[in-house]
């Protein structure tokens, strides 16, 4: 299981304000909190800073690494911002979020994956648009897998993102993702997965409940990575419990540790 902490993103208001004020202390605090809460990677995204994304990426990456010795997930559709962040990564294997099978994006991001030997989040979309069905997604996944491995990217470094859409607008949006995970897992047992899944609950009440159940459902299909808020104790509790139930937790130690950390204190 790979947990990528999503909080350092300038589309979130407190982060935007911290970046604008150059409040390094706040950024460091959020980075530390995420690692302490169980994140393995810290996502850094300043895509909303349209006019100085590169400069902000450098500032964020430097400050996050001054606070935590953790690998980073450099998150941008802009290859220049990706490179600016990757160049400064000090700890472990960096991750790039993300590549797609859109021609221009693929051609610009692939050299960075190779140059920095990065893990790569591969979004199941291409120039024909956003996929609806599992079969649409599988077609893109096949193409991406073929092109990435042919270029020399190890299968274990590929993290497929099946592209989660809201069930509030299309009822089958959830099941299509579950089907996709199953199909990719069957065809390419060595690859990994990641996704931001909160999209699934857009437009509906009690979003956290839906997000949590969807984590459990996707995990059962083989999903093994998430970009989420690791300080959400209920969510992390669901992940540890689910790992124990799926036989991914030797002696259930992860689950027991989560219990001791108080993640289930309000349960009985």
């Amino acid at each position, binding site marked *: 299981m790979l947990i990528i902490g999503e909080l350092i993103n300038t589309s979130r208001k407190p982060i935007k304000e911290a970046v604008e004020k150059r409040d390094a202390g706040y950024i460091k605090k959020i980075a530390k909190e995420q690692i302490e809460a169980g994140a393995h990677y810290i996502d850094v995204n300043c*895509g*909303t800073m349209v006019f100085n994304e590169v400069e902000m990426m450098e500032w964020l990456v430097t400050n996050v690494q001054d606070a935590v010795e953790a690998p980073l997930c450099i998150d941008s559709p802009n290859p220049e911002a990706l490179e600016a962040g990757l160049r400064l990564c000090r700890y472990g294997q960096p991750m790039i979020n993300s590549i797609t099978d859109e021609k221009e994006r693929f051609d610009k991001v692939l050299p960075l994956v190779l140059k920095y030997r990065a893990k790569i989040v591969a979004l199941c979309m291409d120039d024909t648009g*956003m996929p609806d069905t599992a079969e649409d997604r599988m077609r893109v996944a096949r193409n991406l897998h073929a092109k990435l491995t042919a270029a020399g990217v190890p299968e274990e470094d590929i993290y497929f993102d099946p592209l989660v859409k809201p069930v*509030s*607008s299309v009822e089958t949006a959830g099941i299509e993702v579950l089907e996709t995970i199953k199909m990719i897992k069957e065809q390419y047992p060595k690859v990994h997965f990641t996704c931001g899944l909160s999209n699934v609950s857009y437009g*509906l*009440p009690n979003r956290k409940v839906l997000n949590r159940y969807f984590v459990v459902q996707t995990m059962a299909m083989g999903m093994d990575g998430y970009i989420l808020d690791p300080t959400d104790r209920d969510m992390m509790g669901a992940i540890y419990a689910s790992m124990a139930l799926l036989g991914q937790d030797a002696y259930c130690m992860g689950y027991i540790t989560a219990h001791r950390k108080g993640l289930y204190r309000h349960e009985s």
Partner: protein
Amino acid sequence: MSDFDSLAQAVFHGDFDGVVSATKNLLDRGVNPLDVINKGLLAGMDIVAPKFKAGEMFVPEVMMCAKALGEGMKIVQPLLSSSEAASAGTVVIGTVAGDLHDIGKNLVVMILKSGGFNVIDLGVDVSPEGFVNAIKEHSPQIVGMSALLTTTMVNMKKTLDAMEAAGVRDKVKVIIGGAPVSQSFADEIGADGYAPDAMAAKELCAKIIKG
């Protein structure tokens, strides 16, 4: 409950069959088609709108209500004279170039339609020229642009520039929306308005048309 109320309630409950029968019932009794729309169908949506805004109703319900309303509209619209059919205003709307997201945009389309606007939906990944051509073809009062990506929101500015270059910018009011967009971004690129959600978009359009 008056017959108008029962039609409004059917819209509010997203009850397709109920809308169809209540609409036909009113028309059969000789009620003015325009009243069926305003006092029945749109009145139903007026119950929905504030509840959605207050977080008491949710996206799928609003879609269902809008579709139910559409069922009624299909029956009434052919009966309107051309002057009666005059809409609250014409809005051209689309998701900007490079962006394929349409959930929010579709919701705005439905809410505007249910508010009596004539909506020309250009779909997703609409080029600046696409917007310009639509302005020339449909002469809307309002153009709505949507973007969900930080990479595509800059295309709103490009679209505004293209309108300027084609000499149509001052013929329309341009409003924008979408997750990464804000009032300050609207000000920065010189758009005429910003709405944070579909209901606000309808109110904004109504305000613009009023002048």
